[in-house]
């Protein structure tokens, strides 16, 4: 990279970062609030920092490869990106970008761009949003850097396989696919070996794109940081066991961006360490996320990004706190599997085990365990029109939760919606179901 490019990059990102920091300072001073505080505790003090981190992440992306400064990889949320970071790739997660579009209520507009050229509304709304953004350039984050490399891992769904082929075709860049055999009950050594080999074989392809040698030492260090951040995130989840719960799952949805798109970074570790401190302070002061916590529930499946606040307030007003979720837990439960000394092998094992790559029985067991450990009164199963792998089996899972053989059955509600597409959400009907469900819990 030339000196002028380097200067250009530094100047742009430095100014941008300073601006984002100023916004955070202001937000911290004003203790600006996302929620109605009649029923909910004020938002976490760390929240402005999350915003700043996300802003910085996209800012860096904007300038990353514009001047050939850094190479950019687009990756699926469950992809083993640690080895790419070891080659200094800037990694962008289109699913996160789509979620940002969701919270910014831009999906209808952006997704329509994809639908107009023929992508069906039955396709996952994340894919439609990102393809729409790709085709039109529309995005709430300024500008997305074009990828130099694509990495798709099938451990979350098969949609990504086809979606990333579309991306590869459109951008005309190499696509690495990591195929992770589905785990019905337990994984096998040969499945681990198979994934490990794919990761190893991906290295030279990425090296060629990066124009850099793969640094094994750096890979171990990044794996260590991913592990530490996941462990801290896992402790954040655990704190939900306190009564009243210091943070709700809605808080987790907002604060989870760094663990998904900035894992493997030292500042992500610091961020969650500080978040944990703040949560422990809340526990010490007896502060609950929901002021009058009377009932505690589980959330299954992705959030409904465009109605987070509505749902948080609706439930809090009725004394209901959502304190555990299979979704936010997905980035916590794999922490013990990472082994920095053995990054390829342990990475293969880790990335084979996301909840979406395991049988529906595993999710049921996870939910039952949560009901017990978090002392829950019921469960809301978001039946997500978009995410088929997450939603399949929910009818039976609901049934089994209700009629648990150990006699600890809890009421469970199937709530139809879509995680990103507001057109698949009917507020009036959702409100009636939720209200009736809460009345039933009383």
């Amino acid at each position: 990279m030339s000196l002028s490019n380097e200067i250009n990059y530094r100047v742009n990102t430095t100014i941008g970062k300073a601006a984002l920091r100023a916004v955070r300072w202001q937000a911290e001073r004003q203790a600006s609030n996302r929620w109605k505080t009649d029923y909910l505790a004020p938002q976490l003090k760390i929240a402005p920092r999350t915003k700043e981190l996300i802003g910085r992440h996209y800012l860096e992306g904007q300038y990353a490869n514009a001047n050939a400064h850094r190479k950019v990889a687009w990756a699926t949320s469950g992809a083993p990106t640690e080895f790419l970071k070891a080659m200094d790739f800037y990694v962008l997660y289109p699913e996160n970008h789509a979620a940002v579009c969701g919270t910014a209520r831009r999906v209808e507009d952006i997704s329509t761009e994809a639908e107009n050229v023929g992508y069906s509304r039955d396709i996952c709304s994340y894919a439609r949003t990102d393809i729409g953004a790709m085709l039109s350039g529309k995005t709430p984050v300024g500008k997305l850097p074009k990828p130099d490399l694509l990495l798709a891992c099938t451990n979350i769904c098969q949609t990504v396989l086809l979606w990333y082929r579309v991306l590869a075709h459109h951008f005309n860049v190499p696509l690495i696919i990591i195929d992770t055999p589905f785990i019905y009950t337990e994984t096998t050594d040969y499945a681990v070996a198979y994934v490990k080999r794919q990761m190893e074989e991906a290295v030279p392809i990425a090296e060629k794109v990066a124009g850099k040698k793969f640094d094994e030492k750096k890979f171990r260090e990044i794996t260590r940081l991913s592990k530490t951040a996941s462990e801290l995130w896992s402790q954040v989840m655990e704190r939900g066991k306190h009564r009243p719960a210091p943070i709700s799952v809605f808080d987790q949805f907002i604060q989870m961006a760094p663990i998904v798109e900035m894992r493997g970074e030292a500042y992500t570790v610091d961020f969650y360490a500080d978040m944990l401190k703040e949560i422990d302070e809340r526990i010490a002061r007896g502060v609950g996320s929901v002021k009058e916590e009377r009932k505690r529930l589980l959330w299954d499946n992705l959030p409904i990004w465009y109605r987070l606040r509505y749902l948080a307030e609706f439930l809090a007003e009725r004394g209901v706190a959502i304190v555990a979720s299979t979704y936010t837990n997905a980035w916590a439960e794999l922490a013990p599997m990472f082994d920095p000394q053995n990054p390829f092998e342990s990475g293969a094992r880790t990335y084979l085990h996301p909840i979406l790559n395991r049988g529906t029985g595993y999710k049921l067991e996870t939910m039952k365990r949560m009901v017990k450990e978090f002392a829950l009164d019921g469960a809301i199963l978001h039946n997500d029109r978009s995410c088929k792998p997450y939603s399949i089996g929910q009818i039976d899972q609901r049934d089994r939760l209700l009629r648990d053989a150990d006699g600890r059955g809890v009421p469970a509600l199937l709530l139809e919606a879509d995680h990103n597409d507001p057109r698949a959400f009917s507020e009036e009907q959702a409100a009636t179901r939720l209200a009736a469900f809460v009345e039933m819990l009383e």
Partner: protein
Amino acid sequence: MTDIRALGIDVGSTTVKIVGVDAAGNLAWHLLEPAEPRVEDQVTRLLDIADREKSSDAKIPLVATGYGRGLVLQATRRVTEITCHARGVYRELRHGGTLVDIGGQDSKVIAIDPQGDVLDFAMNDKCAAGTGRFIENTARRMHVPLEQMGPVALATTAEVLISSTCTVFAESEVISLVAHGAAVEAILRGLHRSLIKRIVAMIRTVGLVSPLMLSGGVAQNPAIRKMLEEETGAPVILPQHPQLMGAYGAALMGL
């Protein structure tokens, strides 16, 4: 003049019902009207009538339910139709079991335990399939009075299969069947069958505990009751005023 101690109002999509109960929780007074577009005005008018009807001047609780419950600004409390129907029906029939409430634009299946508490419920999906609208639309289209739909369907044993579950598509399917010369009775029988099959699927998600109880406007349709019994093999029992059960339950919650 009636001894009314609490009022319940059920603002549905097709009709608005208001019920007054006495101190013992008996259904003492009621009114039922087609829903008007301006809900607030209609509610105010009905409340004025109720005010003149009740014997004392004391202010009494008003509980609102139904999809328009949020528009009843005078309500002291708002409760969903699920809880209200369960409360009303349980109070009248004194039975746990499975309650099916088929309303104008949504249908519900509610599991009630022997103590009258709601254990579980299911509602129709985001569309009007499996609701009263399904029958209403066709009635209008075929110029058969709504009250006659059930009796006409029961007047024959022949039955035509209606495959669309979508209310709008079913309507066009019916039109094309008529054009092809199918008998109206057989079509209507098929139409009821299609609705009942949707309801039975909902009953299965909640689980059937005998007896089946019916509430909501569509409960008055004899074909619904008969076919529900045929399809499930369970006896179906009805309260005296199935359509008022939501408002009645709401009034009971006000006591």
